[in-house]
């Protein structure tokens, strides 16, 4: 597939699509002032990390947490960590890491530091930010250079997960998957990491249904993939999850360690992890600023809606949410080429004409977002322990994917209903996808859909329903829509969930040098 995807097989109304975008933009604009006027502990820890603070104290608490907790205890946080650290560096003539360590040992405090002109602090902060920014830029150039020299797989990219819980075992699985043909490796996180308000440290070898996201694990896997990429002669993308309570910190870690793709979606955290919506919208803004600057593709999680809601009834909610997510991305300056908007094939296969509706949906998302590397998720909900039938379902997913020009193709597993993938499961899945892709690569180009047939009609209805839904959301506001359970049939309240206590209003002198460095909004 090549992007932009120019075919217009569904005969969609471009005016309606433009209208949808306008409304989605209005919806995001409604929450933007709140986002811009607030920060969170995780945003501040992210700044601290990018100032070079790393490691854990003797009790295992990460220094970024030590530092930011200290700032909160002292009631200093509203100026922002950048401002405070700049001040302390100027005052003590120490680097941020030393400051953190000394604060941890109670040898030093950020209280009662003398005042500096804002201009001075700003300049100091920019200076502190420079090494990280340089490194991130360099990682971006490295990526481009490697893709330039090695090349990369053709879309749809084969996206395989590893989930052993042990980073070293993950590497074995990942290397084997790459040799078999995977283009993207995602290291699934351990159950529950998203609820931790800190990022674990160092290489880890224990996790449930996934491996902890740590900077060391990122770096270890990055190196392994660079190596195996050389062996197979194509650049291999690395994926992790910057979602949950540490969303922006993980974004920063990923940018520094040259991840290529990041799951990054507040909506998912709110709905499926019960993360507080205020917290995560603020976190998301900064995360996407980082991802955008770092050239990292984000993936959104609309596919998940269809695991709790019905895919026939809720198809339009996926599109509506994708449109909102697109505007959230634009807000952070993250371009379409980095927007891996999510959708999925989750209609009950016993539904007559299920394939027509799936094609309608997949093609709809493709045509509404012609420049985005959209992410297509395999069937999960109607998979059973019958691995042979599941393999058939996944084959049909592969067919739908190649036929509609998807970009990022999550590999469906024949063992979806029983366990995270064994090595042989992943192999069989890659093999099936490759067979189907090779077999049908040009089929999409060979066919047109009947004018006003079931496919075209379904797609148009879904688009119209999405527009209607967006209008309702604009009326109630996004917070209200989430309270009403308009997505995934799960309702969340604006003050409920985890992490609200980490949100604070920015003071008048609040400083975050990365916003301007990463090209963020001047108003922030």
């Amino acid at each position: 597939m090549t992007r932009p995807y120019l075919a217009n097989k569904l005969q969609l109304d471009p005016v309606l699509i433009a209208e949808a975008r306008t409304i989605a933009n209005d919806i995001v604009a409604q929450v933007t002032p709140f986002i811009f006027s607030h920060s969170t502990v995780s945003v501040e820890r992210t700044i601290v990390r990018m100032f070079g603070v790393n490691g854990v104290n003797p009790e295992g608490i990460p220094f970024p947490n030590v530092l930011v907790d200290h700032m909160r205890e002292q009631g200093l946080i509203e100026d922002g960590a950048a401002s405070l650290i700049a001040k302390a560096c100027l005052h003590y003539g120490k680097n941020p890491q030393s400051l953190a360590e000394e604060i941890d040992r109670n040898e030093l405090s950020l209280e009662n530091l003398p005042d500096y002109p804002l201009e001075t602090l700003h300049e100091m902060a920019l200076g502190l930010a420079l090494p990280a920014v340089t490194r991130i830029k360099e990682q971006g150039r490295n990526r481009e250079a490697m893709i330039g020299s090695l090349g990369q797989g053709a879309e749809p990219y084969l996206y395989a997960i590893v989930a052993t819980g042990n980073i070293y075992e993950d590497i074995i699985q990942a290397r084997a998957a790459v040799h078999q043909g995977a283009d993207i490796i995602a290291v699934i996180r351990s159950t529950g990491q998203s609820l931790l308000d800190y990022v674990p440290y160092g290489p880890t070898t224990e996790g449930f249904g996934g491996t902890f996201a740590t900077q060391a694990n990122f770096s270890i896997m990055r190196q392994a993939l660079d190596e195996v990429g050389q062996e197979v002669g194509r650049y291999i993308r690395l994926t992790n999850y910057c979602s949950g309570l540490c969303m922006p910190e993980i974004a920063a870690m990923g940018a520094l360690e040259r991840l290529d793709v990041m799951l990054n979606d507040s909506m998912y955290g709110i709905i499926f992890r019960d993360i507080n919506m205020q917290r995560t919208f603020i976190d998301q803004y900064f995360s996407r600023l980082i991802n955008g600057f770092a050239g990292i593709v984000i993936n959104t999680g609309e596919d998940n809606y269809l695991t709790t809601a019905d895919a026939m009834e809720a198809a339009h909610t996926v599109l509506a949410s994708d449109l909102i997510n697109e505007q959230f991305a634009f807000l952070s300056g993250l371009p379409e080429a980095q927007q891996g908007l999510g959708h999925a094939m989750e209609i009950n296969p016993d539904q007559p004409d299920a394939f027509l509706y799936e094609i309608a949906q997949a093609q709809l998302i493709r045509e509404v977002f012609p420049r985005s590397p959209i992410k297509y998720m395999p069937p999960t909900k109607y998979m059973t322990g019958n691995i042979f039938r599941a393999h058939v379902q996944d084959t049909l997913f592969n067919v739908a994917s190649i036929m509609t020009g998807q970009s990022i193709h999550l590999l469906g597993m024949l063992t979806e209903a029983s366990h995270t993938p064994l090595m042989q499961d992943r192999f069989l899945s890659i093999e099936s996808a490759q067979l189907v892709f090779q077999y049908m690569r040009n089929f999409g180009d060979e066919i047109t859909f009947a004018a006003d047939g079931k496919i075209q009609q379904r797609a148009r209805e879904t688009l119209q329903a999405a527009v209607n839904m967006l209008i309702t959301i604009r009326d109630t506001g996004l917070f209200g829509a989430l309270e009403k359970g308009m997505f995934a049939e799960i309702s969340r309240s604006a003050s409920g969930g985890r992490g609200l206590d980490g949100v604070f209003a920015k003071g008048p002198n609040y400083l975050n040098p990365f916003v301007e460095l990463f090209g963020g909004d001047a108003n922030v």
Partner: protein
Amino acid sequence: MSKVDLTQVRPYGDTLNDGIVQLSLTLPLPLSAEAQEAARRWALQSGFQDPKVVHSQDLGEGFSFFVLYARSPVAVDFSSIKVLKSSHKTLEKAEIEALISSKLGRKLVVVGASIESDAHTVGIDAIMNIKGYNGHKGLESYHQIEAYNLGAQVACEDLLARALDVGADAILISQVVTQKDLHLRNLTRMVELLELEGVRNNFLLIVGGPRINYELAKELGFDAGFGPGTFAEDVASFMIEQVLINRKGDHDV
């Protein structure tokens, strides 16, 4: 055409007692004639007869994948198998409602959740939410049931607190993530908590999930367990039957 001997049931390929089974496995060996032989020997050492390695494939990184067909000499005595099952009779929604209002004379109170780190709610929702599952309405739709669905990732302590708070007859728990037997740990935790607090007998304790069955639930100290394909009326029938029995028991004492 011979009849099946239920004391000696063997796998069936296309002829009674041929014992044929299909296997697939990965060995941490790069593909070679010796690795193929290792797969065959693994089958022989496992007691299979006449194993045929119909496919072998290098997976890279020093691993190979094999597909085998083999004959198993193992026979199971089916006639001696007894599976522990709940003896309750599954009633229709209307019957259950009638039973509660006529025999219990008050609403049945139920709290449910997916506990600890488990974030899967579809199972518990299928049982509790009004909408239900596959056309079978959930407990919330029962006029005679007061149902509280606390959702997912609920700590055992919070669940118990709520159950005490509303004076629940039954606590419903869902567990979907079973990796490294996480569910067994979580479920044991709940039983221990109830016992520690000395309130184990105040509640019917019921668990459900894709890897749960009645027998396992009993082993873990639950009153019942429900697996895939359960509907609200299955568990509601059990609950009202048990609550009535227990009350009778209370009276008898």
